């Protein structure tokens, strides 16, 4: 069930430890791409409304584990892939997924889950063409425990009673360290300079793809 389809579009993953920073990084990237007349779509966390429903519903006792929350994240990601990400990629657009897999893996690992379990759980999602890391702000602070900011803040809120150490400053630092690992692939730090570099890499990859399609017969393309 791993998604090995090569789409005509490009997928950019933007991850980070703080919802506001991820949103800001994605917005900065989208603005820069649109200035270059590159059409792009943004896919955000909780597009399915699962987390909102969960916070509003019967889970006020906060008796939820990080494993359960990771499964909800995977379900939300499946929803985003079906309705937002795959259709846009198939149409040849650039999709900015903010956040994507790395945020959930880093946060889950910080809270004690095996990162291999998390990666395999989300293996139905396509590997991004580019990985971006949001510029982190307020790095010496723990997460705000809120349902409406981002995944990490949501988890901090849900685990605040059951596992307060997972919502601490130390946990956030650990998550930032995990996110900063390249894992053998280039990681763009999305400052103004990083956005420029990512934009250039994206434009080059699209040029490369168009050169390839013009020079090679369809049946020889990989």
């Amino acid at each position: 069930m791993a998604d090995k389809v090569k789409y005509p579009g490009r997928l950019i993953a933007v991850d980070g430890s703080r919802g506001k920073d991820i949103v800001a990084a994605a917005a900065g990237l989208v603005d820069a791409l649109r200035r270059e007349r590159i059409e792009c779509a943004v896919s955000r966390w909780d597009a399915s409304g699962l987390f909102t429903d969960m916070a509003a519903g019967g889970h006020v006792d906060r008796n939820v584990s990080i494993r359960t929350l990771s499964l909800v994240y995977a379900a939300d990601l499946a929803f985003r892939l079906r309705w937002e990400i795959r259709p846009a990629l198939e149409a040849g657009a650039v999709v900015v997924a903010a956040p994507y897999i790395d945020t959930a893996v880093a946060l889950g690992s910080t809270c004690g889950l095996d990162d291999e379990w998390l990666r395999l759980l989300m293996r139905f999602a396509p590997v991004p063409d580019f990985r971006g890391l949001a510029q982190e702000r307020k790095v010496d602070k723990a997460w705000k425990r809120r349902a409406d900011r981002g995944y990490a803040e949501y988890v901090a809120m849900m685990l605040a009673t059951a596992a307060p150490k997972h919502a601490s400053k130390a946990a956030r630092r650990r998550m930032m360290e995990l996110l900063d690992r390249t894992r053998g692939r280039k990681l763009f730090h999305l400052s103004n300079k990083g956005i420029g570099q990512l934009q250039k890499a994206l434009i080059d990859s699209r040029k490369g793809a168009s050169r390839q399609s013009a020079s090679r017969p369809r049946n020889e393309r990989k």
Partner: protein
Amino acid sequence: MLKVRKKIRTLSIEEYSLLHAVDFRHRVETSILPALWAGKTVLADRYLFTALARDAARGLDLDWLLHAYSPLLWPDLVIYFSMTPEDSRRRIASTRAPHFYEAGQDVTGIDDPLASYGRFIDRVVTEYENLSVVFQFVTVDAGDAVYRQHTRVRELVEKAEKRPWSTFSEDAVEEWLTKSNTQDA
């Protein structure tokens, strides 16, 4: 969460499976493990294997399913009420029309719920049969008279011994204990 989404028929195969995994994990952590820890016997009317059979019949990879449901909490006894697809179809047709996902209409694409159920239950039963071999279910003939089934189940439960595979549940128990200890602290 799940009921509403089922009602409006918006779930993909992966979402359907993952949301059931969420529900299962929550039940394990908040109902099953606390009861077992208190020394009670837990009777789970449909457990992990129902999800595995149903989702595998939808075309999902069994390895991935086992992974999504891990760490697994293995039961000491699995009673499988076995029935032919024809009997299952006949029984459901005599009482009601099956629901959209129960009939597998999301994967068969057949508009008629009963016709879809007929196609889908074939696959589900095949998956159950495979699982029953791999995981050593104890089979009870669901076509038999109810009182005979009842007697047989009583015998099975009375004779049931802890299976060696329960030691494989250590991870699930350990994770739950860690969570519970943090909560109590």
